[in-house]
């Protein structure tokens, strides 16, 4: 199994008082709450943390994109990936992901990814995402066209990376007379493409298509959902496309904390993981999270009726119980990942080792404990330890 570390780079110094004053820390929280002095310290600290992971032998380090919020401070993950490119030598650098479809000119991002891939001699992983709903407010992209534009932008970028230019791209949303990237990527035919998601049938069907076989990564979800969606990838490959998906095509990303003991881990992590769910995520209102057209009317109605928007009030015990958060001694954490692997067989595991307000010292302890006492054991997991995939009988019509 490959093991990477993901960083969200939250504005950890956020005044908790904003919770009651603003409807969300996304989109509408005034940026006067961002102190550039504190931001400078956080950015440099977070980059140090990822560089430490690279030194300690992680297979990769990961960044992502969010706009106009205190939850994740990387409107451009490309900037962070570029900063890491020259400070690391071996590990993969994963942008998980970039929302090409939010741009009117996705080729600018395709060029930047190609530059990083060349600079690092092929260490880039490129994540294709649509962005969360509030991003469609921030960047003025029409959510009704999101899925179509996403798929078209991805086709454009893959062709720009892999086909000889110049050529003309003739799409519905994107039309360019000259596609001719200089540089083209280092990796052939192009950097590995990943599809991080909170669980989307459209994404799985698209990623598992035999012409793509992109890696599907399930983020921040209860164990039951992780199992369901990762199995769905294998099922879609087999039932719909007639091939057996390799285990390195699926991955799981979860916040994780390793303490000296189970009790110490829970004590240390509690305020910080609860801040992630109760300060940075709640009140991301359903209107912001699910703008009209971002998903089909049926899905939207289902989501709205079930009020899946985060409402706050999360407790660490519940997060651990549901498998959203992995927390405990190194033994406990290792056993949980081994058990999940035995059941789901993922060959990519991504640990989010800083979360919410977790401070520098605890983050460093967490990274070092995980790297020393958990990572070696789980890196050795292969398909041999996976119980295997069995296709459930097709539901009766």
């Amino acid at each position: 199994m490959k093991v990477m570390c993901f960083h969200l780079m939250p504005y950890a110094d956020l005044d908790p008082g904003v919770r009651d004053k603003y409807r969300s820390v996304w989109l509408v929280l005034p940026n006067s709450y961002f102190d550039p002095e504190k931001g400078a310290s956080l950015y440099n600290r977070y980059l140090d943390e990822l560089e430490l992971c690279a030194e300690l032998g992680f297979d990769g380090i990961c960044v992502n994109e969010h706009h106009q919020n205190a939850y994740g401070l990387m409107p451009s993950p490309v900037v962070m990936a570029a900063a890491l490119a020259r400070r690391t030598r071996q590990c993969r650098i994963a942008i998980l992901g970039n929302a090409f479809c939010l741009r009117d000119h996705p080729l600018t991002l395709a060029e930047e990814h190609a530059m990083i891939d060349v600079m690092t001699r092929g260490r880039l992983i490129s994540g294709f995402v649509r962005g969360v709903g509030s991003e469609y407010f921030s960047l003025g992209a029409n959510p009704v066209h999101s899925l179509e534009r996403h798929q078209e932008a991805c086709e454009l970028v893959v062709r720009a990376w892999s086909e000889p230019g110049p050529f003309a791209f003739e799409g519905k949303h994107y039309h360019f007379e000259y596609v001719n990237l200089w540089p083209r990527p280092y990796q052939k035919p192009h950097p590995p493409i990943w599809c991080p998601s909170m669980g989307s049938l459209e994404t799985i069907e698209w990623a598992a298509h035999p012409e793509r076989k992109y890696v599907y990564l399930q983020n921040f979800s209860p164990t039951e959902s992780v199992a369901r969606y990762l199995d769905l990838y294998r099922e879609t490959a087999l039932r719909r496309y007639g091939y057996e998906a390799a285990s390195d095509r699926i991955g799981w990303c979860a916040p994780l904390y390793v303490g000296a003991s189970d009790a110490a881990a829970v004590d240390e992590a509690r305020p910080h993981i609860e801040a992630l769910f109760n300060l940075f995520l709640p009140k991301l209102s359903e209107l912001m999270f699910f703008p009209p057209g971002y998903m089909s009317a049926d899905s939207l109605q289902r989501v709205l009726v079930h009020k899946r928007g985060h409402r706050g009030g999360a407790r660490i015990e519940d997060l651990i119980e549901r498998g959203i958060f992995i927390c405990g001694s190194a033994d406990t954490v290792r056993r949980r990942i081994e058990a999940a692997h035995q059941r789901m067989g993922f060959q990519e595991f991504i640990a989010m080792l800083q979360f919410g307000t977790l401070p520098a010292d605890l983050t460093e302890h967490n990274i070092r404990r995980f790297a020393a006492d958990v990572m070696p054991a789980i890196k050795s997991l292969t398909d041999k330890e996976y119980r295997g995939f069995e296709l459930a009988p097709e539901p009766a019509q």
Partner: protein
Amino acid sequence: MSPTAGTIEVNGLKLALRRVGRGKPLLFLHGTDGLGEWPQLLDRLTARFDVLAPDHPGFGATPAPPWIDDISDMAYFYLDALAALRLSEVRLVGHSLGGWIALEMAVRATARLHSLTVIDAAGIHVKGVPKADIFLIDPEEQARLVYADPALAAAAAERASAEKYHAAAIQNRIASARLGWQPRFFNPRLERWLHRIDVPTHIVWGAEDRFIPPAYAAALHRLIPGSSLTLVPGAGHLPHVERLDRVAPAIAAFLGAKP
């Protein structure tokens, strides 16, 4: 008289349409919430006009075809609809989003139009005068803001709360976003062609509209040659609902008919 509901085929699309009345044709174009219940304003006009009220493509009972992506497609579609229905001397009346569609039709072709009436219409942008963002305001709150009268506002909020997750409401929001997400409910190029409107134009506006403030009425009045303006006191974004007593006679008078 209650309207007859049916469909007509325009460019292969089955357009849902309610129709009632006798006289010259009057086409009413609804706003972002859809046509919903038959508007009382139209009841006041059926004695003198053949009133037609469609569900826009993507709204209500009309499907969303893949060839309507923006307001320009919508305007050409409705011009084709006028031709398909063989209508001429049409009294075109549009509210909010429907007012925007009507304006876009009128800058393109007025050959089949008798006149244009727009009520609290979207379509242009007045710099420095923000419109409410209907995609960021909870439906209950929107319903409250839509009326100037607090009692009407409270009742509307209750209704919106009950209906906001209904499939029809969600579908209408998606259809509205398709046309009006970016830029929000205006076409930057519309303003420069409004001078082309060469049929009598009546602008009706709620003096207390908090969605599209009355500054927009003044701007349209200035930009459309020879237009007349009726500002309705004590009315928000739905003056034809909230102050039907004022608006129905004003519209009827403009259209040359007694109420």
